[in-house]
Structure formats: structure tokens, C-alpha cells
């Protein structure tokens, strides 16, 4: 079954359409990666309104193309300008920008991009190899298990994102509540519509997701003002240095392998984020190095480790999103939203009924990793100029695209009103530290949760959870909620010990 799907997926790459959407995604990802303060989340959100007119084979490669290439763009800005294009690229700044100041910008760029490519290739190959192992587990899942899987998805995002767990739970709960608006599948009863026909089908996902994610980001860009001045514009990069950087990656094979594994494992665990992967792999590379004192002084290994890890995270993240419906990051929450919009149900169906599509998407990650490296290595110095686009140009244009895009989803002005309401909510959530991915995830998974819960209750009664898999998932759920208190107590004890010494 897996082999047949692999052959079909390879065949899909004969389609020009797939290449067109994949390349559009890659170009968009690189562009938004290059501009500090934007990133994959905003880039993906901007495309949401257009997904209704697309097939799954068009929409998902587009978004995955963005996610798989954004860090490459971010690496260029981090190295040449000293400002991380995306948050996970922050670890690259430490040695990358120091190399630029030492006149080794080309070498740093060559190393960063080749390491990114290596990380992406590793992650895609491992994710593909894991599919046959995951299949029996996926096939054994029943409706009752899915109830807990949905809860685990939300719990992971809540417990492992930065800030207060209680605030995260409030946000996730709000998302679940919002998903209850409209007609209920099982009873055909109308809930919280207040007689409005517009709300019969619930809140429009595009307007909600754009309001919660995109509007606060664009406001923040407008408020922060310009990030990069002309005076800090990118320095010149020589091709000789670039090739030296490419060779450095092959010279540090073990660092690439270790960082790839770290990135992949962090990607599989939802909610941790690529920034953790990059800093952990940087620390591990420094610890393993025979010359740790060179790290931080413009050492090429300090660029290779984080850049390998942030890209290696993608495959792991995508695998859990596709197979279990548990997104590894805010970007993956948008991939879940996109799946719902194009008529796919996230979770086991993706590894059974739509296995060929899932394999195609993992191959897209692989191809994008190779292509963006091949394109960026020679063009990096020119691409870095994009980083100087001022926010006073970016904010108004992005805002217009968001509003027109949301309206265009099905030509309804009420979507704009919904966008404004959720935009305001998104700003409040962002500025007071509530988890926005948890809210959107709660909204997306809420209807699935209710659907599976009532099927499980109907089939097995109130004791539907008395199955080994369900009990195992409940145990995992408890562990997730214990994670933060346990971590805090360990950190406190450790700090106490250090102070006592």
C-alpha cells in the first residue's frame, strides 16, 4: 500500500500544475523569510482565501512550499543584516552575522543554505520511511481514540507554547466554543446563531484564521515601523566564499546528522517550535566540538547546526499533522485549516484514503529543500535586498490583500465584519499572551471532537474510553498537563542548587 502510494506520488510530479503551485509557494516563502517580522504564518494566511477555488493537490503544495522555504530566506537576512528573518533563524545570527563582519558572508551563506537543504532532505526521507511503520497504528484507531487524539492536539499546543498554561487553555476552550456556533450535525439543532442565516454554517474559517493570525501581525508591522535601514543594507558576497561554505557542510557531516535528528524529533513533538530546535542543536554542536571557544566568534559550525535543525523540523511536524491531525506549530495549524477548506479530514484518513497525497506532500518538502538551496546559493546576495522593503509599504498593501481576499472567498461583506471582530480579538490575544494557535486549533478540531464523541458514545456507551489505546492516550494527555509544573519545579530546584554552590 505504501509502495503503491509512493509510485503514484512520484507520478504526480509529472504534472506542471503541481510544480507551478510548489514554486509559487517557494518564491513566497523565500520572500517572506527575507523580510524580518513577517514569516511563514503571515505568508500562509494571505493565501487562505484563495484555497476554496483549489484542489488539495494545488492548495497543500502551495502552503507546504512556503513553510519549507521560509527559513532559507530568513537565513540570508540573519547572516547579511544581523536581523533574523524568522524567529528560529535567531541562532544563526550569533555566528552568521559575526562571519559577515569578518568578511566571510559568502561562506556563511553557502554553509547556511546547504545545511538547510541537507536538513530538509533528511527530514523528508525519514518521514517517508516512517509511514509504513505508522500505518498499523493509524488503522487501529477508533472514534473513541480520536476524541482523545483531538484533545492531545489542543493540549500540546496549549502546554508547550510560551506563557501561562491557564491562558492557553482559555484560548483553546474559546476555539472549541466558537466551533459550536451553527447547525449541529447530529441533531440538526441550531446553536448560538441568534437567528442570523450567516451563522447557520458557523463562523467562516478564512475570516477567523486571518483575523486571529494575519491582522495582529500586520498591525504589529505598522506599529514597529521600519526594521532595516539603508545603512545596514546587505554586504557584498563573493561566490568563492559561497562554495567554501558548501564544502564546510560536507566537512561537518556529523554536526549535520546530529542537528537533523534533533530537528526531526522536535518537529514530531507538537508545540515546541523551531526556535527550540535551532538553539538546542547549536548548544549540542558547541558541546560536541573540540573547539567550543570558537562558537560565537564567527565559526561556520555555529551556522550549520541551527540551519540544519530548523529545516529538519518540517518533515516531523508535517508527519504528525497529516497522520494524527496534531499540528506541530502555528504554521501547521494553518495547514490543518487548509485541509478542511479543500475537503480533507486531518488525521488517519490522510494515511489511509489519501496516502498518495500525503507522500506527495512529503516529497514536496524534499524537492523544495533541494530547489531553494540550488536557487539561493548563487542568488542570495541579490535576494537579501528584499529585506530592506520598508514596513510603511508592506503594511497597507498586506492589509488590502487580506480584506479583499477574505471578501473574495464567497463574495460576502459579512466575512469582512467577521474578520474585523476576530482581528480585534487576535490583537488582544497577542498582546496579552494568549495562545492564538490554540484558539484556531480548537475551532478547527471542535467539530471533529463533537462528531467522534457522539459516534463513540453511540457505539460503546459512556465507557468508550476503556480501550488500551484510549487509556494510553489519556495517560499522554495527563503527562502533557504535568509537563509545565514538572519543568518549573526542576528549573527551580536546579537554580536553588546553583545558588547554594
Amino acid at each position: 500500500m505504501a509502495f503503491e502510494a509512493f509510485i503514484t506520488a512520484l507520478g504526480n510530479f509529472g504534472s506542471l500544475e503541481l510544480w507551478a503551485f510548489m514554486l509559487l509557494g517557494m518564491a513566497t516563502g523565500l520572500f517572506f523569510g527575507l523580510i524580518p517580522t513577517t514569516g511563514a504564518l503571515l505568508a500562509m494566511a494571505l493565501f487562505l482565501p484563495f484555497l476554496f477555488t483549489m484542489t488539495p493537490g494545488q492548495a497543500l503544495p502551495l502552503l507546504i512550499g512556503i513553510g519549507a522555504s521560509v527559513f532559507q530566506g530568513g537565513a540570508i537576512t540573519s547572516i547579511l543584516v544581523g536581523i533574523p528573518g524568522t524567529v528560529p533563524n535567531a541562532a544563526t545570527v550569533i555566528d552568521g552575522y559575526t562571519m559577515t563582519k569578518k568578511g566571510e558572508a559568502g561562506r556563511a551563506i553557502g554553509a547556511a543554505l546547504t545545511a538547510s537543504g541537507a536538513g530538509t532532505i533528511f527530514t523528508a526521507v525519514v518521514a517517508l520511511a516512517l509511514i509504513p511503520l505508522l500505518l498499523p497504528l493509524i488503522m487501529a484507531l477508533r472514534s473513541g481514540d480520536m476524541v482523545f487524539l483531538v484533545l492531545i492536539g489542543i493540549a500540546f499546543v496549549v502546554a508547550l507554547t510560551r506563557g501561562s498554561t491557564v491562558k492557553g487553555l482559555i484560548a483553546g476552550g474559546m476555539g472549541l466554543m466558537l466551533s459550536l456556533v451553527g447547525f449541529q450535525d447530529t441533531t440538526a439543532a441550531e446553536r448560538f446563531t441568534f437567528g442570523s442565516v450567516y451563522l447557520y454554517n458557523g463562523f467562516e474559517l478564512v475570516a477567523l484564521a486571518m483575523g486571529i493570525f494575519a491582522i495582529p501581525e500586520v498591525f504589529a508591522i505598522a506599529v514597529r515601523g521600519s526594521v532595516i535601514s539603508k545603512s545596514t543594507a546587505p554586504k557584498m558576497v563573493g561566490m568563492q566564499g559561497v562554495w567554501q561554505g558548501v564544502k564546510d557542510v560536507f566537512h561537518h557531516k556529523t554536526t549535520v546528522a546530529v542537528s537533523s535528528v534533533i530537528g526531526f524529533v522536535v518537529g514530531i513533538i507538537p508545540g515546541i517550535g523551531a526556535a527550540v530546535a535551532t538553539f538546542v542543536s547549536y548548544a549540542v554542536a558547541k558541546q560536541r566540538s573540540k573547539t567550543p571557544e570558537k562558537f560565537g566568534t564567527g565559526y561556520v559550525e555555529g551556522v550549520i547546526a541551527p540551519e540544519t535543525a530548523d529545516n529538519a523540523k518540517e518533515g516531523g511536524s508535517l508527519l504528525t499533522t497529516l497522520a494524527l491531525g496534531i499540528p506541530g506549530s502555528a504554521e501547521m495549524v494553518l495547514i490543518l485549516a487548509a485541509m478542511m477548506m479543500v475537503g480533507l479530514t486531518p488525521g488517519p484518513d490522510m494515511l489511509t484514503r489519501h496516502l498518495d497525497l500525503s507522500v506527495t506532500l512529503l516529497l514536496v518538502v524534499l524537492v523544495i529543500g533541494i530547489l531553494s538551496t540550488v536557487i539561493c546559493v548563487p542568488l542570495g546576495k541579490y535576494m537579501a535586498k528584499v529585506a530592506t522593503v520598508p514596513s510603511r509599504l508592506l503594511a497597507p498593501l498586506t492589509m488590502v490583500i487580506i480584506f479583499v481576499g477574505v471578501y473574495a472567498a464567497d463574495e460576502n461583506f459579512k466575512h469582512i465584519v467577521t474578520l474585523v471582530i476576530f482581528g480585534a480579538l487576535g490583537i488582544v490575544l497577542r498582546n496579552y499572551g494568549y495562545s492564538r494557535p490554540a484558539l484556531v486549533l480548537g475551532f478547527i478540531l471542535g467539530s471533529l471532537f463533537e462528531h467522534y464523541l457522539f459516534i463513540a458514545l453511540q457505539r460503546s456507551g459512556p465507557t468508550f474510553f476503556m480501550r488500551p489505546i484510549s487509556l494510553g492516550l489519556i495517560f499522554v494527555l495527563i503527562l502533557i498537563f504535568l509537563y509545565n509544573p514538572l519543568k518549573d519545579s526542576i528549573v527551580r530546584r536546579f537554580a536553588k542548587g546553583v545558588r547554594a554552590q
Partner: protein
Amino acid sequence: MKNRGNIIFLVIIIVATLVVVGGSFTMASFKSKLLPIVFGSGIAVLAIVQLVRETTRKDPPAKVVTDEDEEEMSEEEGAIDWRGFQKSAIWVLAFVGVTYLVSMLVAIPLFVLFYMKHLGTGWRTSIISAAATTAAIYIVFEMVLNVELYRGLVMRF
């Protein structure tokens, strides 16, 4: 520092969820009211817990703020530029208002032109950007995607 805005937000959440839970009890079917009651009660309890935390949080002793501290604080709650957010919100609401009353094709150039100017762009760049954006939106949406951009109340007469 106690965060007054967050406290108000939590009170709104508590009131809203209690209204939802109360309303859910009037629903006829058990299946319809189960989750609203469970989720609503859960959120209300969590919001009350957070509200107690916020209101009983002790203010840290005052200290001398250095330049470095200010840099670190820039992304924290206390340093949020609410005034900047409010100004942007007014621009966006004006854009939505003009769209509703006149038309999207009128609102877009006006919004881009004056919002860019407000953010510090020169007149020439603002005018060129406004014209180019409107043209691009018209070509992509009206001509290529066959989307009829919203005609406001005035344009419908």
C-alpha cells in the same frame, strides 16, 4: 504590574461564557447542550482562576531602568504600543466604512494613499502605490478570478 486591560478581558470572557452556559440549559436536546455547558463552564472556571492571579499579583519593587532593560521590555506586555494599534484600527475601520458605503474599488486607493502617507511615505510613492494596488486588485480579482468586488450602498443606487 497589574494588567488592567487583561483583567477587563477576563471579566468579559467570564460574563460571555456564563451567558452561553445559561442559554445552553434552555436547549431541548441533550446532545446540543452537552458540549456548550462543559466547555463554557470550563472556560469560566479557568478565567476566574486567571482573574484571581491577575488581581492578586504583587507589583515588583521599582528599579532603575537601563537602556538594556528597555530593549528587553520592548516585546513584553507592559511595552505594547496600544496607541499605535488604536491608530491602525481607526484606519482599518475607515476602510471598512468606505467599502460599505461607497465601494471596495474606491476604498482601496484611498486607504493605501492616506495610510501610507500616515506611516511616513512621500506623496509620490503613496500615489503610485495606491494606483498600482488598485489596478492589480482589479485585474486579479475582477478580470482573472471573476470576483465582483463589493459595491457599497452608494454604488448600488
